[in-house]
């Protein structure tokens, strides 16, 4: 029995040694590749080993740039994202990943590194620090709970630009941008549409915890619905969790029992609620990402976050040498918030016109969604 174990262990060690020996050469070559690229990027930190691996594909895109660009200042930028939930959550984290990818399609970005699923605040802080230390030009801390840590980290890396959202506070630091979404605006418009569409006069909203972006959206939706028709009842149910899909599903059932025929909700656990709405043919309004794919027959519209509007400006500033100091709001006016109507759902012309008018009124300032 002992010898069996020892033999197995020996085999294991041999395999590990063999594998590492064999692959050492390939790592050396990639390391060599980046060192040759380093002089042109003029960032001494780029020779750091850990960040090399993902550069392999981007190296090829870098090559033509090196030949054409003579000005060293225009070197392609490296972006890192640290975010709490999964990058495919059809909600908060996906919105920023989509935003950065949209930017990458337009302008040259040397590398995009993503650390998602970092709900542990301390781990996020470590990741932010690590990306900054590894010479990333812009580190996006996409979680309002990361702000306190960022406030301490950013001063240690004056050459690095940080973006933090959703939030409004740059802590007065010259290398921190803050960004937030005026999610109450889209919420208000969809509340107006919802109130126009409800036949029972009852609307149900499923929320996670009464904080931050979620609260802003929910308050906006309620205000919009009540502004359009003061006789509408808006029931709000904060389940107490961002992740409990089963509970969100039951919250939707509770709304249905209370007579709701229009629903909305925010955060990643609402997929459970959407599914219930689809079963019972209840209309749904989505936010943070386009949720029409989840239930094409009942999703009326989704408020979609276009962070690229903000990111684009941030990148311009970074290229110009300004690393922070300003805060951004995406809203209906600057095109950072977009209402995407579901093409499979036919909306009457009246309601469509009402929606357009409400959007116009919010942009002109005639309507202020929430205080």
């Amino acid at each position, binding site marked *: 029995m002992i010898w069996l174990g020892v033999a197995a262990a020996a085999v294991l060690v041999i395999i590990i040694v063999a594998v590492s020996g064999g692959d050492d050469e390939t790592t050396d070559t990639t390391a060599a590749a980046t060192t040759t690229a380093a002089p042109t990027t003029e960032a001494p930190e780029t020779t750091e080993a850990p960040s090399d691996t993902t550069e392999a594909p981007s190296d090829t895109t870098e090559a033509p740039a090196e030949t054409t660009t003579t000005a060293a200042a225009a070197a392609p930028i490296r972006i890192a994202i640290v975010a709490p*939930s*999964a990058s*495919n*959550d*059809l909600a908060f984290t*996906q919105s920023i990943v989509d935003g950065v990818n949209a930017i990458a399609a337009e302008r040259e970005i040397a590398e995009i590194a993503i650390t998602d*699923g970092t709900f542990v605040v301390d781990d996020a802080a470590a990741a932010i620090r690590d990306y900054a230390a590894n010479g990333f030009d812009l580190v996006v801390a996409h979680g309002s709970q990361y702000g306190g840590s960022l406030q301490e980290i950013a001063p240690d890396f004056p050459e690095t630009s940080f973006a933090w959202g959703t939030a409004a506070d740059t802590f007065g630091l010259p290398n921190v941008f803050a960004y937030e979404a005026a999610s109450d605006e889209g919420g208000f418009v969809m509340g107006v549409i919802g109130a126009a569409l409800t036949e029972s006069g009852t609307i*149900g909203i499923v929320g996670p*915890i*009464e904080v931050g972006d979620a609260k802003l959206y929910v308050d906006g939706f309620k205000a919009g619905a009540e502004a359009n028709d003061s006789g509408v009842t808006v*029931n*709000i*149910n*904060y*389940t*107490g*969790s961002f*992740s*409990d*899909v*089963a*509970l969100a*599903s*039951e*919250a939707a*059932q*509770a*709304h*249905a*029992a*209370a*007579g709701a025929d229009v629903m909305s909700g925010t955060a*990643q*656990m609402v*997929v*459970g609620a*959407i*599914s219930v709405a*689809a*079963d019972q043919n209840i209309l749904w309004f989505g936010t943070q990402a386009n949720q029409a*794919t*989840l*239930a094409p027959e009942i999703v009326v519209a989704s408020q979609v976050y276009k962070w690229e509007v903000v990111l684009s400006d941030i990148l311009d500033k970074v290229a110009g040498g300004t690393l922070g100091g300003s805060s951004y709001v995406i809203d209906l006016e600057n095109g950072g918030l977009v209402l995407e109507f579901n093409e499979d759902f036919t909306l009457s012309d009246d309601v469509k016109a009402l929606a357009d008018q409400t959007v116009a009124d919010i942009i002109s300032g005639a309507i202020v969604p929430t205080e």
Partner: protein
Amino acid sequence: MSDFFTEAVLIATVAGAIRLAVPLLLAALGETFGQRSGVLNLGVDGIMLLGAFSGYYTVLKTGNVWYGLLAGIGIGVILGLASSLISVTLLAEQGISGIGVYLFGLGMSDLLFQRLVGTPVPISKFPKIDIPGLSDIPWLGGMFFSHSVVVYLAFLAVPAAMFVINRTTFGMNIRAVGENPEAADSLGVSVSRVRWATVTIGGTFAGAAGAALAIDLGIFQQNLTNAQGFIAIALVYFGAWRPLGVMAGALLYGFVNSLVLQFKTLGIIPQSWSDIAAMAPAIITILALVIVARRFRAPSALTKPFTRGT
């Protein structure tokens, strides 16, 4: 409060309680077998998550919910066997190996989901069955006899589990092994074989519970179970290691959750109290046990690995 005492809301409250109870009930019933034979498996939630993903993925690919349930059960069997190997044959510390299984399931199900599926896509759900005659009874019909088919299956598993544990030789062996493995061993009962069987049954139920959850919700997402497996384990203690007690616990937990949701929806509990109200199921579960049970005692050999003749 008057909003609450309407037919629709009362039916939804009770029916919701039953729906919420089902995954807990299935997982806890399986865990009851293991614990009755002296093995605590804390990995239930990990098995549920992998069962949920495999069930979801199978339905996504085949469109057949029954294949999905089978896939969940299959994964449950495999992970149950693995858990048996770990805790019965390798005699690992039970509380801790289970946490390993949990972490593995939590990570692995999410990894597979990201790689194989990407963004959530809805799948077909279990068919809803109105039991002829009974479902027409006013109030009670909507509460108890108009559910998805897996709900009935889960509750049918309760008498089945009672029969196996209380009325069969296998059940007798389970109890003997859980109370006094040395004596059982001296009577010729193979302690490890019984425990392999019970832990595998536990895994099977957990896999089924996960698949039932995913297919009933019609969706998968990282950490879909949200630690329901741990609550299921607690409910086994609550149910004093008896299937009927476990069922009562699952229903109580589901009911309080459902009631709180209805109260919040109707504004009976104000919004600003939502988190305080969310504590209610946990607190009431503890209080219920304080009031009801001091008469029951755990199987004597629970959490104690058994080796022959040391």
